[in-house]
């Protein structure tokens, strides 16, 4: 079965939540993850620390530069990843729709 990565997006509203809201959000997320694990669809995932912790290393014409911050400054950024194994893109989209957090970018994985 093909695998897809769900890039879980977040904007500044995530960190502006109250402690109670954050707790409820995590409870919903944990329940969602447990459900996918039970169904055997979850192949792994990670939550990234805030974009303020990002460091970007780039190589341009042989010279390497190190800058603080994410590689792209935008309203939204990647806050975490989930890898899922499902029959097709439609199934991946259905799971992304059920994600209790914010927006999601779905990308198929390269199979070597």
């Amino acid at each position, binding site marked *: 079965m093909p695998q897809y990565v769900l890039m879980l997006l977040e904007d500044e509203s995530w960190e502006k939540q109250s402690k109670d809201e954050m707790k409820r959000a995590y409870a919903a997320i944990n329940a969602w993850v447990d459900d996918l694990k039970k169904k055997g669809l979850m192949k792994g995932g990670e939550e990234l620390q805030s974009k303020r912790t990002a460091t970007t290393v780039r190589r341009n014409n042989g010279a390497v530069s190190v800058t603080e911050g994410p590689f792209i400054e935008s309203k939204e950024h990647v806050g975490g990843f989930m890898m899922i194994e499902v029959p097709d893109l439609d199934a991946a*989209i259905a799971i992304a729709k059920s994600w209790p957090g914010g927006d999601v970018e779905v*990308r198929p994985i390269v199979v070597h």
Partner: protein
Amino acid sequence: MSKYAFLFIDDGVDYQGSPTPEQQKVYADIFKWFETNGSKITDGGAELQPTRTATTIRKGTGKVIVVDGPFIEAKESVGGFSIFELPDKAAAVALAKTWPGYGIEIRPIVEGEGR
């Protein structure tokens, strides 16, 4: 030791078509890099297909919308990721500097229960 996500940055050049000898060398160097540093990887992560295969699910206004394309249109995008276990951020930056490809965004991972 701490876990760091390496977000491999895709520079928007299509390597899937017919790679030049230079691009082939970069690919070979990347393969070697993973062989050399594989023992530090705790989660192999994934190489993503190009952004033209992306689908984005938007939930902004209560109504869920599905659109073709990545969440942001830009020259650079996320091309893949791996999780490394390293002593500290300095070690992560030093390792990222040896990456034969275009670039890496380093982000520490949330370990344990949420932020």
